[in-house]
């Protein structure tokens, strides 16, 4: 019988399907009488306003129907586009009173984030709401299916509506002003948000609250990053600290670059020979074997693959254009100690750089490092000569 629902031009077909589903659920759970009535009404439903004919005895529906409704609504939730016409559509009132209590219990549960589709709770004032809505609805689509209250609903798409006392919302378009007060009317909201008790529930304040929470979350993260910020509370002090820290870091970069410019020319960067002899053999055997373990690392940005290609090329090719940098330092090291295994080479190189950097960061575990490089080396499928130029352009100097 569900199939004979005509689709109105002005009504979203999905809305009708939803109601159909709902009524199906209802049928399964409730007594026959009301179900039949509900269904009949739907069947004869050319205009949506025919829902007005639904008997008010839906109001006394069982609580179980409510719960079943929770399931029903799952597919509904995704139908964001279908809601616009639905502004005045009400769900069956059967969940009214019992649900009201249930919803009242849920009032105090708070979460202020969005898009939670709870089972909707109907208000005890369903009838009153219906009455008011029926009278004041702008759409004339008021049904006895109380979806929520729509006071002064205009069908404009306000994102959120928050009722102080209601904690469950339904997807619906339009802004529901808080006319139904104490009990828990259905909140017809476009986005499911839960407001805490006693908090403002209009869309602006809700969005503001979300935004404030995001900002505070980021400020907390920054507080962890910037040393010495634990005692500072307040946005202004934090911002000052952050600014000072960024400036000091930039100054340090400048200073260290000057020092490096002074220090570096003393080093011998003739890596090519070193690279060819050592890395070719060693890397091709040891490193590659060690690296085949690896799962692809999550850092698969192109630069990684390019660096892998470069490393690969450096291993096999005579032109070690890319890896001068790595090999320079390694050469220094190998001047003292003959290179035994490629793994050792990589490790010592990394260690010399990173032991100063991090005392015991897990990131600098040898295993981790090996794995990291291994993951890259596992992309050996890349041809050796690919992408050296890309790498160069990435860090082109001025």
């Amino acid at each position, binding site marked *: 019988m569900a199939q004979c629902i005509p689709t109105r031009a002005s009504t979203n077909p999905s809305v009708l399907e939803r109601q159909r589903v709902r009524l199906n659920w209802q049928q399964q759970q409730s007594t026959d009488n009301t179900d039949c009535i509900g269904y009949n009404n739907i069947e004869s439903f050319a205009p949506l306003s025919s829902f007005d004919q639904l008997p008010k005895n839906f109001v006394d529906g069982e609580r179980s129907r409510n719960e079943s409704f929770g399931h029903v609504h799952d597919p509904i939730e995704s139908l964001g586009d279908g809601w616009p016409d639905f502004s005045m559509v009400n769900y069956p009132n059967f969940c009214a009173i019992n649900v009201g209590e249930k919803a009242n219990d849920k009032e105090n549960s708070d979460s202020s984030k969005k898009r939670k589709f709870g089972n909707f709770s109907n208000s005890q004032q369903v009838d009153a709401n219906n009455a008011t809505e029926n009278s004041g609805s702008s759409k004339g689509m008021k049904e006895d299916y109380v979806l929520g209250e729509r006071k002064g609903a205009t069908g404009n798409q306000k994102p959120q509506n928050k009722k102080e006392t209601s904690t469950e919302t339904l997807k619906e378009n339009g802004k529901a002003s808080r006319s139904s007060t104490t009990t828990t009317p259905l909140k017809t909201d476009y986005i499911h948000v839960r407001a805490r008790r006693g908090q403002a529930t209009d869309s602006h304040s809700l969005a503001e609250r979300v*935004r404030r929470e995001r*900002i505070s*979350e*980021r*400020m907390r*993260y*920054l507080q*962890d*990053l910037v040393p010495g910020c634990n005692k500072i509370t307040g*946005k*202004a002090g934090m*911002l*000052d600290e*952050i*600014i000072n*820290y*960024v*400036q000091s*870091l930039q*100054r*340090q*970069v*400048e200073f*260290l*670059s*000057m*020092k*490096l*410019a*002074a*220090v*570096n*020319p003393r*080093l011998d*960067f003739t890596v090519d020979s070193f690279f060819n002899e050592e890395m070719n053999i060693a890397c091709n055997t040891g490193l590659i074997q060690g690296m085949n373990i690896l799962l692809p690392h*999550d*850092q698969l940005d192109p*630069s*990684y693959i390019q*660096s892998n290609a470069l490393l690969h090329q450096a291993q096999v090719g005579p032109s070690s254009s890319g*890896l*001068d*940098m*790595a090999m*320079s*330092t390694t050469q220094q090291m190998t001047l003292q100690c003959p290179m035994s295994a490629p793994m050792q080479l990589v490790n010592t190189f990394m260690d010399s*750089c*990173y032991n*100063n*950097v*991090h005392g015991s960061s*897990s990131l*600098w575990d040898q295993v981790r*490092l090996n794995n990291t490089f291994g993951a890259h080396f596992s992309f050996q499928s890349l041809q050796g000569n690919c992408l050296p130029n890309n790498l*160069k352009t*990435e*860090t*082109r*100097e*001025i």
Partner: protein
Amino acid sequence: MTATGSPGNPNPNLSKPMLVHHFLRALARVNRAAPKQSHARRSRRIRCAAYASMAAAAGPGRRWSRVLLRRLRSSPSSHRRRISVRVARPPRIATASSRVETLRRLVPGGRSLGYCSLLEETADYVRWLDAQVQLMQSLVDFFSS
């Protein structure tokens, strides 16, 4: 550096090997041409190389890295001082908006960001800056020992 990323971070872990890779490569390139150049020019090149390697290692997922790379590549010949450190003296009464403005100036690409995104970019930028400074410090220590 903690392994946890900032909220919404595309890359929760700093890839320091990449940083080392890029920076050392760039250093080597600078030093190949080094002897002929003045110390000042070399140091500027190294500073640009530091920022470039930082941006390259951070990847294109961040606005600051994209802006930095674009800046560095766009006019290699002109001696851009855009990256130079200017100690922004905060006004005597540093209002919140002026602080935010200062932060916008400090973080690359921060001019067109909203406040929330600006904080996120700042966090990421600080992480990478920290890593870069540590790398350079360790290099200096290594080379001077």
